[in-house]
């Protein structure tokens, strides 16, 4: 009687959980336990197990077949619709422009889709794949109505945004290769958040936990698939301090030279040998995060960027526009050259909580040690001091759950020869350097999965004797003034 009761209970629990095969396996563990406790027989367990498997096999989830080496897999992504208006103003006296401060305005209704899977595999391997709309490396937006034909689909393709694999089998180390999420701690000042660099990354992280008044202990960390780390909890102490040390190294293939060894002798263009080696950007970052006692933290993560090789697309001297030229002539000067860039960036962040509300003060400072050469090559040997970029801001709140809100503002200044204009954020300062201004953002979580965000950015040219280097959406160079407004409805899953 008792046995029948347990068989019934096991079957009920199992069938209740049996909507997916994983739950059937959970129930299998329960059956094993009941057998071990001699509450049911192996035969009874097998019959229940068969029922569970049969039940699971008829569900949608049960029909999915997963490769055996997959330990865990996650489907994730987001869909965003956006209204955006951005506008730029010409300088006071630009040849060919009919009047001062002529304005170019763009209003767009846009959407984006990002759909990814990521997971962990047997033996400490992991992988990720993400499809994204848009071919632009610094944007995943598609503009409504911007197609050939009414409601055309020519701009609505999906592309591989991320495709990477990695290994975490060595303590504290994470190795990644492929087209990956940016492994560096950085800000929009230097890297657009949509860029997924291609190449290799090596990340090391180790945590040290100190307990004052009760001795000290050291704790290792493991990386999860989303790069977050989880420290092993230690016994509660009156006052604790945690120090995370980390190193992020990146070798990203910036521009492939093709061919490396052409037939015949190497040709020249404008007196310069045409390139025959790939161009890489190498990132060398070492950082620390100090957390005390648990809600207050300070993080600083200096990173040095060096460039090697030539590639075949960026091997020209950067000019970045020119004051006094017509707009077309100014824009036709080189905007993408990566010559003479040896940049040290130092992002930092200080965070704490006011009651349960997270507050963060953040900033970034960058200097290009080769700015003299870059300025000289651009025809401005007197502008070697145009080597700095900096950002400072503050934010309060977060958007994690329904009714959460967030507010953030920052000021940013970028000198003409300070940064790689091909990497900087494409929105708030239109992918430009030699510009400074303010950005204000507010967000509200309508539900756990849906957020509404408003953003406003205002920038103006910093050095009025130079252009505003970089290729943005506003076809003006120098871009004297710039404004951006965005309203986003974002669904995240």
């Amino acid at each position: 009687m008792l046995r029948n009761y347990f068989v019934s209970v096991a079957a009920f629990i199992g069938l209740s959980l049996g909507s997916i095969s994983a739950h059937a396996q959970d129930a299998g563990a329960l059956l094993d336990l009941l057998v071990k406790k001699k509450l049911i027989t192996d035969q009874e367990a097998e019959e229940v197990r068969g029922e569970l498997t049969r039940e699971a096999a008829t569900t949608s989830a049960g029909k999915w077949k997963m490769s055996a080496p997959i330990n865990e897999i996650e489907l994730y992504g987001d869909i965003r619709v956006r209204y955006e208006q951005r506008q730029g103003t010409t300088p006071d006296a630009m040849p060919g422009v009919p009047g001062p401060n002529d304005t170019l305005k763009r209003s767009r209704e846009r959407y984006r889709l990002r759909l990814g899977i990521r997971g962990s595999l047997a033996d400490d391997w992991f992988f990720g794949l993400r499809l994204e709309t848009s071919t632009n490396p610094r944007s995943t937006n598609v503009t409504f109505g911007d197609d050939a034909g009414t409601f055309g689909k020519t701009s609505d393709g999906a592309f591989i945004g991320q495709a990477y694999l990695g290994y975490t089998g060595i303590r504290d180390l994470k190795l990644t290769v492929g087209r990956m999420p940016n492994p560096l701690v950085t800000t929009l000042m230097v890297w657009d958040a949509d860029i997924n660099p291609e190449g290799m990354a090596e990340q090391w992280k180790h945590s040290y936990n100190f307990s004052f008044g009760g001795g000290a202990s050291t704790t290792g960390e493991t990386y999860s698939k989303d790069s977050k780390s989880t420290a092993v909890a230690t016994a509660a102490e009156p006052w604790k301090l945690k120090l995370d040390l980390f190193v992020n190294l990146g070798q990203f293939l910036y521009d492939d030279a093709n061919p490396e060894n052409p037939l015949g002798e190497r040709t020249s263009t404008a007196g310069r040998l045409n390139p025959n080696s790939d161009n890489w950007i190498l990132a060398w970052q070492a950082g620390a995060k100090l957390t005390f006692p648990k809600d207050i933290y300070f993080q600083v993560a200096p990173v040095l960027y060096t460039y090697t090789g030539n590639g075949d697309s960026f091997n020209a001297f950067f000019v970045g526009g020119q004051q006094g030229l017509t707009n077309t002539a100014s824009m036709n000067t080189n905007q993408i050259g990566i010559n003479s860039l040896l940049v040290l960036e130092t992002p930092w962040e200080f965070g704490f909580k006011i009651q349960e509300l997270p507050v963060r003060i953040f900033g970034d400072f960058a200097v290009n040690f080769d700015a003299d050469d870059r300025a000289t090559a651009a025809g401005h040997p007197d502008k070697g001091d145009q080597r700095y970029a900096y950002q400072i801001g503050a934010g309060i709140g977060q958007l994690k759950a329904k009714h959460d809100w967030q507010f953030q503002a920052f000021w940013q200044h970028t000198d003409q020869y300070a940064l790689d204009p091909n990497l900087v954020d494409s929105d708030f300062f239109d992918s430009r350097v030699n510009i400074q201004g303010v950005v204000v953002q507010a967000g509200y979580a309508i539900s756990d999965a849906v957020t509404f965000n408003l953003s406003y950015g205002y920038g103006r040219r910093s050095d009025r004797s130079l252009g505003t280097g970089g290729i943005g959406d506003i076809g003006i160079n120098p871009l004297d003034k710039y404004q951006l407004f965005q309203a986003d409805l974002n669904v995240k899953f």
Partner: protein
Amino acid sequence: MKLTHLITALALAFVSAEARADKLVIKGSDTLGAKLVPQLAEQFKAQHPGTTFDIAAEGSTTGIAAIIDGTAQIGMASRRAKPAEISAATAKGVHMKPTIVAYDGIAVIVNSANPVKSLTKKQVEQIFTGEVADWSAVGGSGGRISIYTRNTSSGTYSDFKELAMKKRDYAGTSQKMAGNEQIAAEVGKNPSGIGYVGLAYTKASGIKVMSIDGVLPSDQSVHAKTYPYARPTFYYTNGDPSGLAKQFLDFTISAAGQKIAAQVGFVPIP
């Protein structure tokens, strides 16, 4: 004369029909079908004269497929039916019912000349996945390891992969054998050989059984599930068996049937 012929023909037809009615088709596991089931069948036939058996031991997959297709009354399996098989059966209106008929331990065997006496679960996994390719890495006297496995239709092939190899793939150099006896024979001839067989096949000459994490496969360790590669073996039927299939199943799990199972080398149902 004609009447005599007619009576004879009718009599033969009747006998033939009776024979067809008492024929039991059993397909599936080589582990069960190579030794145990034929011996059970002989004993059963002695008690049920006129009964004939058609036993095909070509792997558990073929036995389960035969139940789904309706080409056998009993499907022998040394593994559980996979979700995809159960799903396919359900789609055809077949209810896969498992009945445990005996227990088994998948024994890891090496050549009797091999000095290695025991292995850990990790070492077994490393050997069969090819991570470890030389006997010196596991305390042996050196020499490239020759791996013998069952073929892919075998339940033992699947069970071993799940129980011993974390579902990883076998080494590319492994050699696939048709049955337990072939594996035992090859390992018995090859001093560098390693393979796995059901407990009933561990008495072959020239081989010895490895203890795994210090545990040898035995009645006790299999029942207690302390031997890591212990498993039940099954008869699969379409729903509750009936007729001859039920009689044979009942005989298999009866005291007499279990005695035969023990004699063959299986671990009887407690």
